[in-house]
């Protein structure tokens, strides 16, 4: 009796503490993002994720290297068309504390669905307490090696933690590393994107050198991006498994993209506001999951057409009558792909690269040398290239050695100074590509300019960031 009472009390206390922290953050920093409230709550009541599991009727976890946040936001948006009570970590805080923060900020007795993106390194820990009905795996790219060692390790961790679970896997058929999860013998649903006009004929990605079945070289009939594409192994016969859901065609129409979806032999096309082949994968992953979760095809495509991104990972602003496109870049593949989109855009434009080297960005900035910065050489009407962040010179160097003329390079002390220049240039479009920790600050600065208000909050935040606190 006494034990149960204490447990309940601890739970309530943890929620109270978490909410208080969240409240304070909102007042002073105008931000509820982040994992701190969850961290505090977990330190008081470590089993809190079990409580989350208990309150969600069913759960979906989304993991992999790229596309987690977009797929998560898309899926939640789609499923909201039928189920109003959804718990999700929409802002991308994807470690256990982040999931708990989402719970604390949206506290309910029960939810129809819990839909969460989970960091590859945290997957093991999360499924210890939270038993998913569905797991979506997007892809494995080399990402921040200093945190995980190598992608084989991330693969192994997720593989082992899935072994004892009763769950349905929704797998990207076009990534040999992901389709390999079929070995687990779970219920597998495969999705993918067929050959289309945005395909590359060649990609220099090391993962393509090893067949997961026998270590031989894989043959590719087409590449979508990275090692995603149509592959087969001449030696052991390893190849793309049959897809239940696939995007069969991509058309670019003005500002929008039109995708043709083949959902279990039913054809349906829909429009999507955001570009890039990687978004075809994000759309396909989330529609596959939604359809498997019991939604109907019409609702799914209607919902996806009304999706708008509000998180800055891909966000469009209109400032000084210029189209400002902000896209988060976090690893070589995503950076190369975004620059490919820039190169296809014929409008008069400038570019701002923001490179930070905080732990969440990856402390090692060498990853930018694995990205196809050379894609910029194809860009027309590109006026100026600006650099900001903690390591702007490293990025400028990478551009210089890609063979891009340094004549129009501008290196800035901070983001605000860069915005003062780029937002007043004689261009139609502005591309801003920040790494993770620069993203939220950038959004605040842009929003402050739209609202025309003072920049006090941003400056206060900058001040707090630069305060040197003793390490705990």
């Amino acid at each position, binding site marked *: 009796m006494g034990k149960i009472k204490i447990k309940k009390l601890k739970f309530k206390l943890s929620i109270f503490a978490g909410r208080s922290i969240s409240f304070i953050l909102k007042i002073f920093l105008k931000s509820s993002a982040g994992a701190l409230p969850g961290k505090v709550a977990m330190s008081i009541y470590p089993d809190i994720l079990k409580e989350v599991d208990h309150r969600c009727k069913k759960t979906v976890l989304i993991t992999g290297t790229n596309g987690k946040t977009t797929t998560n936001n898309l899926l939640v948006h789609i499923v909201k068309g039928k189920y109003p009570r959804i718990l999700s970590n929409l802002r991308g805080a994807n470690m256990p504390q982040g999931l708990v923060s989402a719970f604390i900020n949206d506290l309910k007795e029960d939810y129809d669905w819990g839909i969460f993106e989970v960091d590859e390194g945290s997957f093991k820990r999360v499924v210890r307490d939270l038993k998913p009905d569905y797991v979506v795996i997007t892809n494995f790219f*080399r990402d921040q*090696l*200093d945190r995980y060692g*190598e992608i*084989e390790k991330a693969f192994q961790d997720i593989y082992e933690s899935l072994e004892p679970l009763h769950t349905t896997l929704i797998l990207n058929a076009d990534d040999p590393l992901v389709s390999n999860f079929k070995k687990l013998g779970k219920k597998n649903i495969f999705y993918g994107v067929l050959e289309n006009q945005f395909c590359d004929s060649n990609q220099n990605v*090391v993962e393509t*050198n*090893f067949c997961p079945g026998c*270590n031989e070289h894989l043959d590719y009939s087409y590449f979508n991006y990275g090692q995603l594409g149509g592959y087969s192994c001449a030696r052991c016969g390893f190849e793309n498994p049959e897809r239940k859901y696939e995007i069969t065609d991509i058309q670019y129409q003005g500002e929008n993209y039109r995708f043709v979806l083949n959902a279990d032999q039913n054809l349906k096309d829909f429009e999507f506001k955001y570009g890039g082949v990687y978004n075809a994968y994000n759309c396909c992953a989330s529609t596959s999951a939604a359809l498997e979760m019991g939604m109907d095809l019409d609702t799914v495509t209607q919902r996806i057409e009304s999706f708008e991104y509000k998180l800055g990972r891909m966000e469009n602003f209109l400032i000084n009558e210029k189209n400002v496109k902000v896209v988060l870049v976090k690893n070589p593949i995503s950076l190369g792909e975004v620059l490919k989109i820039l190169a296809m855009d014929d409008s008069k434009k400038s570019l701002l690269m923001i490179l930070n080297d905080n732990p969440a960005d990856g*402390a*090692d*900035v*060498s*990853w*930018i*040398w*694995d990205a196809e910065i050379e894609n910029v050489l194809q860009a027309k009407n590109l006026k100026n290239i600006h650099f900001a962040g*903690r*390591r702007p*010179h*490293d990025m*400028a*160097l*990478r551009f*210089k*050695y890609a*063979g891009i003329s*340094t004549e129009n*390079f501008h*290196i800035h002390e901070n983001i605000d100074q860069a915005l003062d220049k780029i937002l007043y240039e004689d261009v139609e479009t502005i591309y801003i590509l920040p790494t993770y920790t620069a993203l939220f600050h950038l959004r605040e600065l842009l929003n402050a300019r739209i609202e025309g208000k003072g920049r006090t909050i941003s400056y206060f935040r900058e001040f707090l960031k630069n305060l040197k606190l003793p390490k705990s």
Partner: protein
Amino acid sequence: MEINIFQMYPDLLNLYGDLGNVTCLKRRCEWLGIQPNIVNFSINQEVSLQDGDIFFIGGGSDRGQSLIYSHLLKYKKELEELIEDEKIFMAICGGYQLLGNKYIDAEGNKMPGLEIFDYETKSEEGRLIGNIITKNTLGLKPDTLVGFENHGGRTYHDLQPLGKVISGHGNNGKDEKEGMVYKNCIGTYLHGPVLPKNPHLADYMILKALEKKYEIKALDKLDDKIEYLAHEKVIDLYSP
């Protein structure tokens, strides 16, 4: 004038952006008016090593590394002769470890090296990760080298190091040595990649190659403003 730059196993040893070093050498040669020829050498792409002026060996995953060890063993003697003949080599991280006698992993298993140099690398607890600043032993100006290290293995030797550690860990986190130099062969743990941010080291390698091939004694000066700003930034942020 032309320089042949051999990129060893670029399909297998290409972690941490190290191939950016080859891009750096190639561009600097172009800017200096020297024709760079990039030659890929790999398991299904064997070409004569005798034509090489600069050899670059990066680091790879364990899987990549064990594949190339057995392949490269056939060329051990030839590599040794090329090094003795003062050809220019740069071996980074796993490549640097590979030139030694052996690598001993956490369980005590021994993985043989090419035994070109008399040193060994032991896996010890904790990875040595972070930005690193050293003082170079080659007499280059500026005297600092900057980069990023990320290795679990500790290398021990009495050879000339490439640098003395000012900030960071170096070969083993104990003796303040980073890397090794023997004739024109350089081994190092510095990623970054190391050459773009240390153009004095890049030009040192290019000059050594030209000296050997064409008896050239000095290089033209390139505009290295951004290079040294990047170099200085690491020192500003990470010096003790």
